[in-house]
């Protein structure tokens, strides 16, 4: 299979369990180059585990996870990762520039960042309209700005696959939209894989959805129905179709 035709992400019969608790069963799906895909599903359904498997942080108990036809560890230099911003210590003393410079690190990076790396980081922050904040403490930024810095950090490695964990959490609608526009502008050919609970955001942003709740099913976003969501979340959800074809959700109901 050539580089052009092989999937960027390929899961074959992946199985994972924490002790006796099975989290993922026989997960199979492919994501191809340039696709934007979102993983949705209930809490504890296995989304985070799937993300860790794809990022190479854990190994599957059965089956195989391949990125660009190789193991996640072999292809990690082609992957950018944007974690949830709630995972950070708000008191950690680190500047925006220092956060961004982490993105250009390699396994054997020692000492301090080079001048070229600093110039690259400043250029990346500039492209995300964050250059003025380079010396600002990361903790003093707003939610939207922090998310943008984390995206800039992930893009420093010029990844072919960008993985985002809950990019819209703690971010207002306008900031989320700006963020996605920025990502698309900086990497049109990039493959994007996201985890999100925001079904409205999912419907606006991606054409394909990976539904995860122990088992994995892939659906075109347009084909998401109340039945699919009820089955996925194990709770009665109602979809309401708006004129602009966006899903929306309020109080446990989904409007599409």
């Amino acid at each position, binding site marked *: 299979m050539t580089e052009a035709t092989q999937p960027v992400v390929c899961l074959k019969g992946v199985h994972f369990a924490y002790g006796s608790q099975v989290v993922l069963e026989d997960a199979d799906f492919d994501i191809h180059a340039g696709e934007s895909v979102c993983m949705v599903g209930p809490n504890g359904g296995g989304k985070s585990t799937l993300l860790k498997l794809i990022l190479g942080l854990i190994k599957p108990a059965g089956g195989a996870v391949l990125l660009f036809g190789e193991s996640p560890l072999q292809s990690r230099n082609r992957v950018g990762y944007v974690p949830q911003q709630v995972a950070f210590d708000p008191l*950690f003393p*680190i500047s925006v520039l220092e956060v961004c410079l982490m993105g250009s690190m390699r*396994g054997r990076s020692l000492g301090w960042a080079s001048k070229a790396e600093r110039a690259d980081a400043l250029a990346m922050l500039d492209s995300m309209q964050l250059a003025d904040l380079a010396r600002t403490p990361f903790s003093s930024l707003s939610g939207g700005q922090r998310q943008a810095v984390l995206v800039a950090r992930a893009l420093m490695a010029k990844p072919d696959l960008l993985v985002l964990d809950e990019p819209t959490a703690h971010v207002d609608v306008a900031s989320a939209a700006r963020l996605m526009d920025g990502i698309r502008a900086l990497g049109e050919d990039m493959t994007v894989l996201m985890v999100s609970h925001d079904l409205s955001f999912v419907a606006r942003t991606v054409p394909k959805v990976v539904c995860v709740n122990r088992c994995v099913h892939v659906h075109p976003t347009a084909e998401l129905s109340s039945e699919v969501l009820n089955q996925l979340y194990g709770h009665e959800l109602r979809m309401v179709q708006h004129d602009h074809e966006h899903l929306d959700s309020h109080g446990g109901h989904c409007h599409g």
Partner: protein
Amino acid sequence: MIMNIWTVMEGIVMVEFFQALKDPDLVFLRYALILSLVASVPLGAVGTLVVARRISYLAAAIAHSALGGIGVALYLREAMDWLWLSPMLGALLSAMLSAALVGWVSLCAREREDAAIGAIWVSGMAIGLLSIYHTTGYVDPMGYLFGDILLVQAADLQLAGVVGLIITATLLLAYRPVMAVCFDAEFAAIRGVRSRWVYLLLLQMTALSVVLLVSLVGIVLVIALLTLPPAIASMWARSLWQMVLGSIFLSAGFLVAGLVLSFSWDVPTGPVVILLAVSVYLACLAMGRFSSRG
């Protein structure tokens, strides 16, 4: 007027202290001053990482378990005539062993991590006290627990110098991966950094740092010196390296000022150093609250 009197008194104290430094009968004072300055650099740097990574509890466990090594060293020196095994070397070895154990527990334990770390903490102290109990002759563990300026020996200075150099060189070399792991270990791992090894390295650096000042401030009080200067520096530092520099200067300041004052008042050095650090920390906290309200 009051300020003038205070300045004059301060001057007299300083002059007395610096005159005492030249006195050959008070050579321990010179050793303590050199040790303070040598230890400030690694202590400030490692303390910053400990505070930033929020592992003060682990550092405290490592420091307290050093008593095990001190006790065993004292016993073996007496019982086996192993004179090469100084209490400081014993403290160093046991702190490194407990750092490895603490690191393993904190990385691998699925549950009850705090209980396992607490067990390592008290086991070291129990082994130390039992070993001291079985050592012939009188050994006062209070000196090792709370520091005794008379315990600072010339050989300890050499060991402190070597250990301080190792810590400083390692942290300068590994600054980037260490900072990345402290801020976001998961992201660092994805970028290929061996996060677990870097974390274990940080704990080993912590072990080496706390042992540097065992003789001067003791294993109980050294944790305050490891954590308070970074906590104060973090109130104004905008980046990690600013916090490191601030912590180094604050550590040196507290140690030297504590030495001068304890010499002048003829009281133990460790508690004076710690009370000084706590007072400045509380004052900075109060000023921070006051200015944020204003």
